[in-house]
């Protein structure tokens, strides 16, 4: 792959771009891939081979685009806002449905209960915490799937307590307060 000049900031941007367009996860998956036809561990892939394989797979994908898949993803994107979540690219190629799952309420059991003390999983910055006061089932565009969403009543000492008393968060973005680092 063509790399930018090796200034630390542009290298960082390059890595960011690989992450944003889901190329980094593809590289990682290829490195450890194993099935009946291909086992990466046996092949001793060089970095150059790995990058060439990645580029060929993307070219292959580009040549074999399917309108049904594109239309499905576009529908999912338009369901929320105008931003395109790059994580969509990582999804399998089945058009996602934004309809309430037919088996509702017999869907995955919610992980948390009302009254649980939860905090947002820290990304880079300080995070907020509070008590779960409610939950609802909603379409999560970043997963292209339905997921539980929780209403969190913020603790008085939580960083955003001065801004708002409560907020909502996806289940995968929360963890129990006692587990927090």
């Amino acid at each position: 792959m063509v790399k930018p000049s090796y200034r630390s900031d542009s290298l960082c941007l390059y890595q960011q771009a690989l992450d944003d367009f889901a190329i980094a996860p593809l590289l990682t998956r290829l490195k450890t891939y194993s099935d009946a036809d291909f086992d990466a561990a046996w092949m001793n892939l060089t970095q150059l081979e790995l990058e060439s394989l990645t580029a060929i797979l993307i070219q292959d994908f580009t040549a074999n685009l399917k309108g049904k898949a594109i239309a499905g993803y576009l529908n999912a994107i338009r369901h929320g806002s105008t931003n395109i979540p790059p994580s969509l690219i990582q999804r399998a190629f089945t058009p996602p449905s934004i309809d309430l799952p037919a088996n509702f309420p017999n869907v995955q059991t919610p992980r948390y209960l009302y009254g649980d003390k939860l905090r947002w999983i820290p990304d880079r910055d300080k995070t907020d915490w509070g008590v779960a006061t409610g939950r609802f089932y909603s379409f999560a565009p970043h997963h292209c799937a339905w997921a539980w969403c929780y209403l969190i009543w913020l603790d008085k000492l939580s960083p955003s307590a001065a801004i708002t008393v409560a907020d909502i968060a996806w289940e995968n973005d929360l963890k129990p307060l006692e587990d927090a680092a």
Partner: protein
Amino acid sequence: MKPRPLTEQEQTLIDLYGYCQLGMTPQQFYAKWQVNHEAIAFICSRSMSTVQRWFRRGKNYRRPQPADLRHLALMDFLLEHYQDIPEQLFKALCCPKHNP
């Protein structure tokens, strides 16, 4: 107090508001006005933890709700046009004491 019946014009206004696609993304708002994430959280009544995810890329990106986009669009509208709004009208809009 008995609710007031709507005129045809008022019904049209409700339709206009209901179907209105007014929205501004946090990125657009952030690029246009010199604000920090905290100000955006304050405008949208969301936590900082949520707002930070609106600005991430890749797997940590989370999409704002349609209501958040409308909050930002209305704030943008007010910032652009508050000088054109008569003072009395502006007070009726933004002074909490005037709300029922």
